[in-house]
């Protein structure tokens, strides 16, 4: 069933590089009739650096926000960022399983955390609480050129004990959501392979190799874009794509979209509204031939059409292969 209101923790990245993720999320949830209330004066969840340094510190930094949400009387906290999510889930689990830890954490806090906040990724909210039908019913636009590889990243559904969402090895929530929007989805084997984003700055050589591995697999599975649910993955694959090409001598030009952006497009929002212009690898070619679907046309027939265009195979593909100017622009900037 759909919960009308959620506490919405966008997380730091969505105020920075991932602003279009934030924008598109807010737009589509509004369209789907879900209210998001931003916790007052939230702070950084601590992310990888904190728990790498000390579990207690990590716990406290996350718990500060949980404590704020706890006092909002909204049952569930949702965040689009898997890193924040796992920080919250870890803190919550530790605090509820280990009394001593909870006390220690609360000693560091100004307002104590009692342990009453349930956290869900925004993807989970849309997939489970809102549901596929509701999403499909909002679709007004067809995106015939997209051949998406859904990339979930490493911690959205793992470890299963903690994430308690989707399949840890072969998650399908995004695949299904996109399909519901009539988008063709490819069978992508590296859905949960780690891209190394956490080390984007200090261990570039490492990250570029992992990222290259992922992008290679994307091409192998016949996709022409990657759809993600994690700001760090997006940052890594999009911002650093040029770096990858330089370092590994490849020439990828694969647009990296947030699932919320794809939903936004399908719901009929313009690329500008969604902030697609912020992407480094241009998405223009992908969405050039999108057209509004006629009123009487049902989602299922859209799917069929998409299948057909897929059946035509290469024709469709070459049709939306990145034009030279795109690649140029990408490299010029680099």
């Amino acid at each position, binding site marked *: 069933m759909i919960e009308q209101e959620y506490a919405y923790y966008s997380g730091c990245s969505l105020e920075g590089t991932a602003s279009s993720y934030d924008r598109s999320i807010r737009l589509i949830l509004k369209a789907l009739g879900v209210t998001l209330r931003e916790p007052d004066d939230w702070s*950084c969840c601590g992310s990888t*650096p904190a728990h790498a340094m000390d579990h207690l*510190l990590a716990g406290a930094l996350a718990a500060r926000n949980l404590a704020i949400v706890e006092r909002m009387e909204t049952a569930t906290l949702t965040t689009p960022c898997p890193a924040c999510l796992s920080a919250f889930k870890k803190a919550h689990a530790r605090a509820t399983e280990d009394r001593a830890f909870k006390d220690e954490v609360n000693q*560091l806090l100004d307002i104590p955390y009692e342990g009453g906040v349930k956290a869900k990724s925004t993807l989970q909210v849309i997939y489970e609480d809102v549901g596929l039908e509701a999403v499909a019913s909002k679709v007004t636009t067809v995106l015939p050129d997209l051949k998406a590889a859904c990339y979930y990243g490493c911690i959205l559904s793992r470890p299963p004990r903690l994430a308690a969402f989707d399949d840890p090895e072969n998650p399908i929530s995004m695949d299904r959501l996109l399909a519901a929007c009539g988008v063709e989805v490819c069978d992508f084997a590296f859905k949960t392979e780690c891209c190394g984003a956490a080390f984007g700055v200090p261990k570039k050589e490492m990250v570029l190799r992992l990222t290259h591995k992922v992008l290679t697999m994307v091409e192998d599975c016949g996709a022409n874009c990657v759809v993600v649910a994690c700001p760090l993955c997006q940052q890594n694959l999009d911002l650093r794509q040029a770096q990858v090409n330089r370092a590994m001598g490849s020439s990828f030009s694969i647009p990296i979209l947030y699932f919320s952006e794809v939903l936004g497009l399908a719901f009929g929002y313009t690329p500008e509204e969604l902030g697609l212009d912020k992407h*480094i690898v241009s998405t223009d070619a992908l969405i050039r031939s999108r057209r509004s679907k006629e009123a009487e046309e049902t989602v299922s027939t859209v799917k069929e059409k998409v299948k057909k265009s897929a059946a035509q195979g290469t024709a469709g593909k070459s049709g939306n292969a990145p034009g030279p100017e795109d690649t140029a622009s990408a490299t010029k900037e680099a």
Partner: protein
Amino acid sequence: METIHLTSDTLNNFASEVSEATGQDMVRCYQCGNCTAGCPYTEFFDYPVSQIMRMIQTGQREKALSSKAIWLCATCETCSTRCPCEIDVADVMDGLRNIAYREKRFTEKDIRTFYEAFLTSLRNHGRIFELEIIARYNLKSGHLLTDADLGPKVMKQLHFLPKRIKGRENVARIVKRFMEKR
């Protein structure tokens, strides 16, 4: 290669120390190597995860805590997800890192520097500010040009002024109290 002398102390003390810190039971590990096999970082590690686990089982404290591996682990949870013995291996690596941190053993200087930059930004603003982190990191690490090649469009993305939150003192207090505790 040195001969390792196995005594009940060497065999038990470190293992129980790690169990203490993580709540994970080291004895359960039967060295199947699944973690090593799945880990995206094995190729960058000095010791594969399964061997780190073995070091804990056999009390090789020094070796384990001074390894690069514990710093290069990104907690991607692949190992924890697939461990047939239900050990949260990623948590164990985290635990080792925590101990190393407390004992100021920083085998991977750059990563440490990045973490500190991150935490400083966090302490100053209550939230983090990507550009500042990079700047700080470059200064501290001496790799002045890191990500300078990202180009203007990216830099624009990396966003103007830090958002300072009202409760930033209150976040700073958390960090302060923590520092006092440890």
